[in-house]
C-alpha cells in the first residue's frame, strides 16, 4: 500500500522555534515587560537606591534629576515626605507581582475546577454553578472587593482573597463553555470508547485542549489583579500604610499633583506598562501553545 505523502517534515525542536516565531512581537514585548517587572520585584533590595520608607524632609518634593532643581541622588525625585520615588516604585512592584501571581493562580484553580465540573456533569450541578456565576457577576466586582477587604481587614492576604473571590467566575464561565464544546467533539467520545472514566477524560483529554485558553486568561487576570490591587491601595484598604504601593503613591500624589505631577504620573506609567505587558504576553503565549494553529 502506498504511503500517503507527508508534505512536511517537522522535528520537535523546530516546532518550538516556529511557535516562538509565530508569537511575534506581542510575545517578545509582553515577555520583556513582564520580565522586567518580575526582575525588579525580585531584586528590589539590591537595585533600589534608597530605603523606600526613609524620609528626608529637607529634600521633599524634589523633581526628577534631569529637571532644574533635581538631585542626582534621587533619580526620579522625592515625594512630599522626602522619600525616594524610584525606590518606592521598585518596592511597589513586589506587592503588585505577589498579588498578581498568587491571586490569579488561585482564582484560576478554583474557576477551572468548577468550570470543568459544571461543563461535564451538566444538569443541576451546571445549573447551580451557572446561577452562582450569574449572581456573582451581577455585583460590581471592585465594590465586592472593597467590602471584603473591609470585612476581613486590610492586608496582603485580604487583597488576594478579595480578588480570588471575585474573579474565579471569569475562569469558571469560559472553562465551562469550552468543556461543553470539547466534550461534544468526536475525540471525547473516542476517549470514552477506550474506557476512560469521566475524570480521566477531563484530565487527560479535555484539560490539555484548554491550556491555550487558560494561559491567555491567566495572563489577562494577572493584569486585572494588579489593577484591583491598585484600586484597593488607592482607597487605602490594601497592605499596611507605610508599605509602598502604586495605588497608594497615586493617592498621595493626587494631593500635590499641581506642585509635583511626576509623583502621580510615574506609578500610573508603571501600572499601564505592567498590565499591557501581561496582556501581550497572554496573546503571544496563546499563539505559541495552540498546536492547531501550528500550521
Amino acid at each position, binding site marked *: 500500500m502506498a504511503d500517503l*505523502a507527508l508534505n512536511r517534515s517537522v522535528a520537535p525542536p523546530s516546532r518550538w522555534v516556529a511557535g516562538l516565531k509565530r508569537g511575534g512581537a506581542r510575545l517578545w514585548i509582553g515577555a520583556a515587560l513582564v520580565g522586567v517587572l518580575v526582575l525588579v520585584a525580585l531584586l528590589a533590595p539590591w537595585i533600589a537606591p534608597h530605603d523606600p520608607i526613609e524620609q528626608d524632609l529637607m529634600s521633599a518634593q524634589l523633581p526628577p534629576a534631569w529637571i532644574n532643581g533635581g538631585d542626582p541622588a534621587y533619580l526620579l525625585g522625592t515625594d512630599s515626605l522626602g522619600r525616594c520615588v524610584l525606590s518606592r516604585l521598585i518596592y511597589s512592584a513586589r506587592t503588585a507581582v505577589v498579588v498578581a501571581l498568587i491571586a490569579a493562580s488561585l482564582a484560576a484553580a478554583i474557576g477551572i475546577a468548577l468550570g470543568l465540573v459544571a461543563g461535564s456533569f451538566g444538569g443541576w450541578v451546571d445549573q447551580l454553578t451557572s446561577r452562582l456565576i450569574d449572581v456573582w457577576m451581577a455585583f460590581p466586582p471592585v465594590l465586592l472587593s472593597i467590602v471584603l477587604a473591609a470585612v476581613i481587614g486590610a492586608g496582603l492576604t485580604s487583597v488576594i482573597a478579595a480578588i480570588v473571590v471575585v474573579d474565579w467566575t471569569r475562569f469558571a464561565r469560559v472553562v465551562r463553555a469550552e468543556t461543553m464544546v470539547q466534550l461534544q467533539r468526536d475525540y471525547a467520545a473516542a476517549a470514552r470508547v477506550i474506557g476512560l472514566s469521566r475524570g480521566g477524560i477531563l484530565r487527560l483529554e479535555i484539560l490539555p485542549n484548554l491550556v491555550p485558553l487558560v494561559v491567555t486568561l491567566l495572563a489577562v487576570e494577572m493584569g486585572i489583579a494588579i489593577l484591583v490591587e491598585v484600586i484597593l491601595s488607592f482607597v487605602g484598604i490594601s497592605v499596611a500604610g507605610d508599605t509602598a504601593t502604586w495605588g497608594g503613591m497615586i493617592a498621595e500624589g493626587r494631593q500635590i499633583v499641581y506642585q509635583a505631577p511626576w509623583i502621580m504620573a510615574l506609578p500610573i506609567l508603571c501600572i499601564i506598562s505592567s498590565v499591557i505587558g501581561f496582556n501581550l504576553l497572554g496573546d503571544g503565549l496563546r499563539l505559541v501553545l495552540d498546536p492547531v494553529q501550528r500550521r
Partner: protein
Amino acid sequence: MTTILAIRDLHVAIGHHADATNVLRGASLEVGAGEVRGLVGESGAGKSMLGRAVLGLLPANAIVAAGSIHFEGRDLVAMPESERRNLLGRRIALIPQDPMTSLNPVKRVGAQISNLLRRHLGLSKRDALGRAAELLVEVAIREPRRVLELYPHEISGGMRQRVLIAMAFACDPSLVIADEPTTALDVTVQRQVLQLVERLRQRHGAAILFVTHDLGVVAKICRTMTVLHAGRVLEEGETVDVLAKPRHPYTRALLAATPRADRPAEALRPVPPALIEGLWAEARRLDGQLAMAAS
C-alpha cells in the same frame, strides 16, 4: 462458531417518557467470533444507534428501554459502568466515522496510542511507544517513529484513519465496531482502508460489526449482513444470498438505489414505517388464522 455479541429485542428511546421516539424497536442481532457482519440501512434506520448502544455511547437523552446486549455472555446493559469501561478499548473497540476529529488535536499520535496500551495492557511508557510503532507498521505507515512524534493535524486524513484502525486493534479485541469508517474518505483511500481492516482482522482474530449505508462495501468485506429499517431487523443472512435474492421489498429497493456503473441508479423508494408495520400486522393475522385453521 461461538457467539460473542448477542443483541436481543433491543429498544432504544430518545426523549422523555411522554414524547419519546423509539429509534430501535426490538432489534436482534448476533455476531459470531471472527465474523464480519455488515449492518446496513438508510439514514435514520438506527444502525449507528445500535453500534452506539453496544459501546455505551448513546446520547445523554437516549435510554435502553428494553432488551439485552450480551457480549461474551455478559449483559452490557445491566453491567456496572466501571466493568463496562474495563471492556471498552480492550475487548470491544471502535473504528470511528470521522478520522479528522476523532483524535485529540493537542496530543501527539504516539501519546494517544501509548496511553491506550498503558491503560489496558499495563505496559511501561517505553514499551508502549515501541508497541505503538509496531502497530503503525501493521497499518502500513512508513517511518512510524516519526509519525508518533506528530500531532494529528500534521498527518493526512487517510493516515489518521489508519492510526485509528491501529488503535482499534491495539489490545486484540474480540469485537470491533466500525461506524462508517470509509464514509469520510475518498474512494481510493477507502479501498486501502478496507483492505487494511480485513488484514488486521485476520491477524488479530476479531469479529467486526461493519455499520454502513454502502452496499458495495458490504459486498466487498462482509460475509454476513443484517438489513435494518425503522429500528427493526428486516432481513439477514449470508451477504451473497441477501444481495442475490433479497426477500424483503425494502432490501430490493435499497439494492436498486445503489449506483452501479452498468445501469442508471434508481432513487431509493422509501418504505414508510407505517406500511411495514401494516405488513407485519397482516402477517401476524394470517399466521393466527392459519394456526386456527390447523387446530
